[in-house]
């Protein structure tokens, strides 16, 4: 098998605070292959953004502590100098952010901001950079790019700004695009357009994409593989079919159960996962999800389940239940109607 594009090995990211050490990311390992779309799913505070921000080394908090390795194309990014890291950022790994309303600098026009990125990593004349910027704006579906290039971010709508952000991110043909909840701040029709755009651009540019989201519905269409994160750890990992049709972790069931589905008659309220995620300072003994898990039994409060392959086929999960138990129980959470009629 070819070497993965990105390999994260036992990454731990913690923040020193007055209350103690917050373990935002607590020992996670995963890979992203070339041209692959990996969805990283989890609720707020599960460590998904921190993980990918660490890959970019974009966390500026002076109280951050890192452990582990981030291998990108055979190099450990954690060991790179600041200048070497700058070469990676923007050129090899690019990132788009959650809120397009605040992610662009309000005082420069969008052309300037794209050209700045181009000039940082390439040797271009002014005219070349501008032509390339117009080309990029056209590629991300901005109408009349020759005129819009001189407009300022506040003259664009939210969806258009996210397109500009994507143009910015793709300007240097990165091999890995990290999209941190790119659709969360947009309304639903625009969300679909932006996802479609990312899908098409992925095809045209051949970049791998790491798509962070709290919405399984968002990754359903475009992800090849999905990581489910909970409280700073990966609790389930598998390809799209495995996660959607054979989910193993009760947390994943909860996420699936809370998606509104239009292809089934809906007779009741969506099931929500009860309770709050655990404190990342004092992690409870045993499984982190146990306090919220309706399936928890004695072993869960004593022993921390490891992420292992129980089903096979690269499908990993961190739960003590046996595969048969899980298959028998999960419909009660995901599809209560089906479970009752069965």
């Amino acid at each position, binding site marked *: 098998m070819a070497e993965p594009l990105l390999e994260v090995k036992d990454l731990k990211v913690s923040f020193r605070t007055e209350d103690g050490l917050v373990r935002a990311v607590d020992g996670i390992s995963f890979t992203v292959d070339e041209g692959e779309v990996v969805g990283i799913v989890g609720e707020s505070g599960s460590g998904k953004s921190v993980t990918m921000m660490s890959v970019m080394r974009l966390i500026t908090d002076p109280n951050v502590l890192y452990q582990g390795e981030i291998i990108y194309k055979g190099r450990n990014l954690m060991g790179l100098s600041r200048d070497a890291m700058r070469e990676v*950022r923007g050129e090899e790994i690019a990132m788009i952010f959650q809120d397009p309303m605040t*992610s662009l600098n309000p005082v420069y026009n969008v052309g300037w901001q794209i050209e700045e*990125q181009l000039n940082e990593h390439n040797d271009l004349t002014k005219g070349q950079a501008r032509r390339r910027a117009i080309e990029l704006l056209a590629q991300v579906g901005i109408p009349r790019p020759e005129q819009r290039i001189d407009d300022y971010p506040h003259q664009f709508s939210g969806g258009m700004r996210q397109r500009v952000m994507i143009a910015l991110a793709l300007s240097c043909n990165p091999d890995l695009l990290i999209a941190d909840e790119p659709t969360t701040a947009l309304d639903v029709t625009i969300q679909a357009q932006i996802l479609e755009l990312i899908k098409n651009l992925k095809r045209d540019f051949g970049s791998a994409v790491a798509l962070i989201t709290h919405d399984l519905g968002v990754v359903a269409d475009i992800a090849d593989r999905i990581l489910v994160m909970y409280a700073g750890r990966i609790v389930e990992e598998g390809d799209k079919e495995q996660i959607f049709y054979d989910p193993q972790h009760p947390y994943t069931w909860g996420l699936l159960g809370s998606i509104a589905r239009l292809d089934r008659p809906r007779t009741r309220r969506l099931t929500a996962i009860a309770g709050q995620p655990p404190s990342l300072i004092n992690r409870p003994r045993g499984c982190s999800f146990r306090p919220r898990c309706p399936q928890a039994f004695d072993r869960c409060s004593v022993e921390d389940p490891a992420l292992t392959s129980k089903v096979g086929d690269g499908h990993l999960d961190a739960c003590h239940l046996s595969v048969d138990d899980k298959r028998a129980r999960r419909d009660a959470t995901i599809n209560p109607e089906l479970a009752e009629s069965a």
Partner: protein
Amino acid sequence: MATFAIRRALWLLVVLFAISVLVFLIFFATPGVDPARQMAGRNPSPETIKNIKHEFGLDRPLPVRYGLLMKHMFISRDLISYGSHTRVIPEVLSATPVTLSLVFGAAVIWVVFSILTGVAAAVFRGTVIDPILMILALIGISVPVFWLGEVVNLVTQSRLHNFFLFSWVPPLGYTPLTQDPLMWFEQLIFPWLTLSVLYIGFYARVLRANLIETENEDYIRTARAKGLSERRVLLRHTLRTSMITFVSLFGLDFGILVGGGALLTEVVFGLPGVGLLTYNSLTALDLPVIMTTVIYGAFFITLANALVDLLYAWLDPRVRPA
């Protein structure tokens, strides 16, 4: 942009008119103030007072008197000071370059040093340099300018004047730039430094706070994600957007100082500027001079504000008129 400038110019006229009416009413329609008696000198005869009243139109209705005053001020430019019996306009015009020299020089120093201090404090946040700079800034804000000026004079003019460091310092006063540029500079350098100390401290603190606030903006993260150097992120992204507050404050302070607010510095360093003129006219209740210096001051303050609005539009495209 042109309509914007014209609108600002018209607005300037309206403001000046309103201020002149207000000042006119305060001084000329205040009971108990009789300008004629002031002008007539000691123990005047009722006859003299009556003549003066007639001559200056003081026996006419208020709107006419306002009109006459404006005519003397702007059209015939022969408004006479009550106190010194000289023409007011040339007096103000000769004081203007003094004040402008003082404030321009101080402004250059305070802008440069406050940006350096503010940026250094923000960059070195979390180290010992930041609190040291901020304490120095606080001291600069707290030191009264008249005291600092006197101490500077004591050192450079008297106690250590013969010490080689300060032996070049010329006596207090003002030499026009056109007459002797070196002398102009030497006489103004200590007034500049003294005047700018307060503003360096104040602006450095404001800028540091703004820089730190901007540093947390999403677009700064975007700038880093683009792979820009820290230096470029700071200068082109963080500093640029942080300058918006700085510029608004600068316009106000600059206008106020040129308009006569540098009074204390002018008095301490014996600079015959507009502040000094205003101060003297106020103590003598010299109404024509008061009127002229107030309108002069108002003119510079509104002008500085109009310029700041233009600069602001350049800095922040969101406020640009469509």
